[in-house]
């Protein structure tokens, strides 16, 4: 069996392949409208504009967007729960919330029109990744406050596929359903796909008993290596899609059959890349923090929302015909990127390796120091549960394994140190992932 690359199909050619000049004009109009909407309906953002001395009439061209203040997750927290809504609650038909690892979750709402937009955008990337009305879509995302399950559910139904809302968990049952119902498309997080592949093998289910041909993965950071692994193990064509609940959920961007970056649906979202420290625009190819403006959202329009996600943008035309700029896979989060000997290091990469070693994530911390002219990275790992063994030999082997895997992923070899539980610094209960001691030594 081989993986079949789907042929190019486009759900909404009128918008997805829009001529760039027409697209800019549409963005300009929509930006003006959304800024006016915020000014009128969201006192919180109006005040932010007043602070920098801007009124809606100052926004005439798309470049004028640079005059507008950024919106951050902290803003949304201050607006908890409904202050950021630009539509009255009677017009809101759906509420979702982000996980909220620090304090209050962020709450987002959708009007009926927002739901329609969301559905259409999910249909766009599903078709881009090869979905047709003949498919049976197995959704293993959880259904709940998290936006993932619902977004793809509606999108796949819109395309005309048969949707199985399996939701998350109970892996063996997932596999039985996949086998018995003939699921052809899998929707879940990439790490769960890798786990599923393992369980399929352990259960002795033959790959020929499964009809899977497509995979739509998102919701977390993943690498090209993971894509190869998923494609090779599951024999499915795997595409990446991106979204965040604050913006709309899944449906901000998605890959096409060429698997070379995720097309941002620019008629609905205006992307910018900034340097996370200076907030100045950066060269799209060099990469920076993705900033998104929702151009059509009614319930929660957000202007220049700082996603904290780091990526590059590729404006080159894509052979598929879509004109929307392509964003790369995320390379991490701007809140905690480290540059060590010229290499970008993200805690998420370390997390991936640690997860791989024992299947669970221990508390860990990256400690960077400067020894002479060289930066030195230590990864401190708290030893508990699965990570403890009664034998020195095993603990040493584990240290070396983690070091080797990290070297493969990062391109530099860190020193792994095992430390006692609860010994790593935490701030307000949340682990502090990075300790950069180089900053203390600045001249």
């Amino acid at each position, binding site marked *: 069996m081989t993986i079949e690359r789907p042929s190019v199909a486009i759900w909404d050619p009128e918008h997805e392949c829009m001529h760039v000049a027409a697209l800019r004009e549409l963005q300009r109009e929509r930006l003006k409208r959304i800024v006016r909407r915020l000014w009128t309906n969201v006192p919180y953002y109006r005040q932010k504009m007043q602070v920098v001395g801007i009124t809606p009439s100052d926004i005439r061209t798309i470049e004028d967007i640079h005059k507008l203040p950024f919106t951050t997750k902290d803003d949304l927290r201050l607006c908890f729960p409904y202050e950021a809504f630009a539509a009255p609650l009677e017009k809101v038909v759906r509420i979702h919330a982000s996980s909220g690892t620090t304090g209050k979750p962020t709450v987002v709402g959708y009007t009926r029109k927002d739901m329609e937009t969301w559905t259409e955008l999910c249909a766009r990337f599903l078709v881009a990744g090869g979905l047709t009305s003949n498919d049976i879509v197995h959704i293993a995302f959880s259904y709940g406050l998290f936006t993932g399950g619902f977004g793809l559910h509606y999108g796949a139904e819109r395309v005309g596929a048969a949707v199985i809302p399996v939701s998350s968990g109970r892996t063996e049952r997932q596999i039985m359903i996949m086998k018995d119902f003939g699921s052809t498309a899998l929707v879940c997080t990439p790490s769960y796909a890798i786990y599923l592949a393992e369980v399929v093998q352990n259960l002795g289910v033959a790959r020929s008993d499964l009809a899977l041909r497509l995979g739509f993965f998102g919701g977390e950071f993943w690498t090209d290596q993971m894509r190869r692994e998923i494609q090779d193990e599951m024999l499915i064509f795997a595409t990446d899609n991106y979204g965040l609940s604050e913006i709309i959920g899944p449906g901000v961007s998605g890959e096409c059959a060429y698997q070379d970056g995720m097309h941002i649906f620019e008629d609905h979202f205006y992307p910018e890349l900034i340097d996370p420290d200076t907030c100045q625009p950066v060269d799209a190819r060099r990469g920076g923090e993705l900033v998104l403006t929702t151009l059509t959202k009614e319930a929660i329009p957000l202007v220049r929302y700082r996603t904290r996600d780091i990526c590059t943008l590729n404006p080159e035309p894509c052979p598929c015909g879509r004109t929307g700029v392509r964003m790369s896979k995320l390379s991490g989060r701007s809140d905690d990127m480290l540059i060590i000997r010229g290499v970008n290091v993200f805690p998420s990469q370390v997390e991936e390796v640690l997860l791989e070693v024992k299947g669970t994530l221990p508390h860990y911390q990256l400690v960077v120091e400067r020894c002479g002219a060289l930066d030195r990275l230590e990864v401190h790992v708290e030893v508990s549960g699965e990570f*403890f063994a*009664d*034998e020195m030999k095993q603990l040493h082997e584990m240290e070396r394994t983690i070091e080797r895997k990290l070297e493969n992923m990062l391109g530099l070899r860190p020193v792994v140190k*095992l*430390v006692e539980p609860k010994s790593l610094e935490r701030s307000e209960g949340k682990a502090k992932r990075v300790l950069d001691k180089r900053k203390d030594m600045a001249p």
Partner: protein
Amino acid sequence: MLVKQLSIFMENRAGRLAEIARLLGDAGVNIRALSLADTSDFGILRLIVNDVKRAMRILRDSGRTVSLTDVVAVEVPDHPGGLAGVLERLRDANVNVEYMYAFVEKATDNAVVIFRFEDIENALKVLQRAGISVLSAETVSSL
């Protein structure tokens, strides 16, 4: 015939051992035997105590990483060559010892050696066949 040993992960830092000993002492747990394996960064403290459950709870509650390991307590005659005799039997039967440590009994003329074997079942068979006395958990905790 197996004895439960507590294995505790410790960073190699001044005062660590004292803290654990104090913690157990204040809880009325008596340490029967101990061994410490260490490197420059961390160590594993291995303890045989009179009240395993209590010790386990105290240590876990204090946030330490503890696990239980099955070990075998062997009675060895406390005279020159006593240990050699036991070890030779094990060697002849190709039984691998992961680690071991010993203490001297107060009441008798024997020493007790705690063994961690790679293959416990096989080790027990070999010891039994050789007529070497293996102590039960109850006996060890009441020593």
